[in-house]
């Protein structure tokens, strides 16, 4: 360990120190002044963002910097994902403040757990060794389980936390099992050494392939891909809306980085083998996610199935196995996280006085109650559906292009067909908002910081769509 190692991990160290400091600070802050915790959390994110951004000398000239005996890496992919993780988390915190007050959950544990989950995600993004990957994954997951269960008296939330915990532990077990087999076959835990060993000995090794299968299963669990998606709708529905927002954004970025580190950086030599596996889970996810979302009457469940479908798309880019495909997938996962944060932001916005507005019928006539937010939600939904000019369209476009370029035109066709089917359930919500009469016609509003961030979030989807060039270039340059 030397000075450079510490510099490489500087954002993580800062977040860890500040999160511990936040815990201690909470002991001395009275209940009336809890706003301070909120502000400090946002400050921590800003600080982490500054430190991370200062580490990028030039985004296109990247040489990954290894640290801590090659177990930790800093590269432009990691930096980009981390910056978006901070952004998403800051948005989540601002959205959730309003909600936490209304639902009697305004406690500093929420902030501390969220920061530790973020720390786990950051470690996961930068991990270059199997053990570090596992460490980050567990830190992130354990914090998330606790966040889901934060509403202790709520039956649904407790059930969701239980399901999440049990299935999540199973996935972690699978991952460890896979890692142990890969270690047995290659004799190393460092991702670059594993890739070297595979290059030397070839991929014709039964134990290595078994390890790969377990790893892919664990990844599919964490992403929530069919057929390992069972926890997604239940957890999304049961968790408090801001926690659902968090689960659907930051961990997805981390899971993407984990997939790149495990499948590309270490098991890249087995591309021919994992391509078929990703193809299967990807196509199944797109199909089942879009079809099952049609039948939902609960908006959180609907968005959960939509997540499954979108993660299927991310798999399509990854399975192409080209730098272009990885860049497209990264663009997809980042923009999806932004869109989903906005969509759940609206769900938070609609919830009040201890009742979550999670039925589709609650959105009837939103246009009469708050026209501006109805417009913002419509924008987000159209982007999720993949309507041109909005960013969701370009994300789908890039992924499909990557798939077509490796000669899988049929796959692109299947994906497009299911996306068109899927557009129906997004449009249905828009129809409810604009063409149905509201049951309750009282106008709704939110604090000004909430309104500003949600507006910014929705407009970002539009702006990133029109000026998508820089972000696409940054994603492509990462590989």
């Amino acid at each position, binding site marked *: 360990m030397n000075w450079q190692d510490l510099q490489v991990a500087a954002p993580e160290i800062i977040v860890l120190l500040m999160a511990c400091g936040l*815990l*201690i600070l909470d002991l001395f802050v009275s209940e009336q002044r809890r706003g301070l915790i909120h502000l400090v959390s946002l400050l921590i994110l800003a600080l982490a963002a500054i430190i991370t951004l200062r580490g990028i000398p030039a985004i296109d000239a990247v040489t990954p910097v290894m640290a801590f005996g090659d177990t930790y890496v800093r590269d432009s992919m990691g930096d980009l994902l981390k910056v978006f993780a901070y952004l998403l988390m800051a948005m989540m915190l601002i959205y959730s403040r309003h909600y936490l007050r209304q639902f009697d959950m305004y406690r500093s544990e929420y902030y501390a757990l969220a920061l530790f989950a973020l720390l786990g995600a950051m470690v996961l993004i930068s991990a270059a060794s199997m053990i570090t990957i596992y460490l980050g994954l567990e830190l992130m997951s354990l914090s998330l389980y606790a966040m889901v269960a934060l509403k202790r008296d709520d039956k649904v939330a407790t059930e969701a936390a239980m399901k999440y915990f049990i299935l999540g532990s199973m996935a972690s077990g699978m991952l460890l099992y896979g890692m142990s087999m890969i270690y047995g076959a290659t004799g190393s835990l460092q991702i670059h050494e594993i890739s070297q060993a595979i290059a030397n000995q070839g991929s014709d090794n039964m134990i290595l392939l078994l390890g790969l299968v377990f790893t892919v299963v664990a990844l599919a669990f964490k992403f929530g891909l069919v057929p390992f998606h069972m926890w997604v709708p239940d957890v999304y529905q049961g968790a408090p809306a801001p926690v659902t927002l968090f689960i659907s954004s930051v961990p997805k970025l981390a899971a993407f980085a984990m997939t790149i580190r495990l499948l590309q950086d270490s098991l890249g030599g087995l591309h021919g083998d994992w391509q078929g596996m990703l193809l299967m889970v990807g196509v199944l996810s797109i199909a089942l996610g879009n079809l099952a979302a049609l039948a939902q009457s609960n908006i959180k469940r609907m968005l959960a199935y939509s997540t499954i479908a979108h993660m299927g798309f991310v798999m399509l880019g990854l399975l192409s196995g080209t730098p272009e495909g990885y860049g497209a997938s990264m663009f997809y996962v980042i923009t999806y996280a932004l869109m989903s944060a906005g969509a759940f932001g609206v769900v938070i916005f609609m919830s009040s006085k201890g009742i979550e507005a999670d039925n589709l019928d609650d959105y009837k006539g939103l246009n009469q109650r708050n026209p501006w937010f109805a417009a913002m939600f419509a924008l987000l939904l159209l982007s999720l559906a993949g309507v041109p000019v909005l960013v969701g369209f370009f994300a789908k476009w890039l992924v499909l292009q990557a798939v077509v370029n490796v000669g899988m035109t049929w796959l692109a066709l299947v994906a497009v067909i299911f996306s068109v089917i899927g557009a129906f359930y997004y449009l249905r919500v828009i129809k409810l908002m604009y063409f149905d009469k509201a049951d309750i016609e009282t106008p709704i509003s939110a604090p000004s910081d909430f309104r500003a961030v949600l507006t910014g979030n929705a407009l970002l989807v539009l702006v990133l769509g029109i000026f998508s060039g820089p972000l696409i270039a940054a994603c492509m340059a990462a590989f």
Partner: protein
Amino acid sequence: MLSEYWPVIIFLAISVGLGTALLVIGGLLGPSKPSVEKSSPYECGFEPFADARMKFDVRFYLVAILFIVFDLEIAFFIPWAVVMEDVGLTAFAAVVIFTLELAIGLAYLWKKGALEWE
């Protein structure tokens, strides 16, 4: 080769011998006044044979959790302490950081009142 197992065999012999000796001496010399309570198996203050689906006092849980935390801490410290001279300053720093993190957690619990029994 087998001679390497001598310490194990000696250890086994001593433990079996000591265990037997203590039981025999206690049986021979100790007073024997059995009662129902004394003869029944001991089970942490519960009825030894009852329905397992009963309410537990939450204090047991607290003790168990605290035990796990500090037990793990020890499990981490001992191997480090054994090789402390070989692993150097980096490992020392790591253990100090680890201890500090635990201390922060403990301070937080304490101040929040999680250690109060009543």
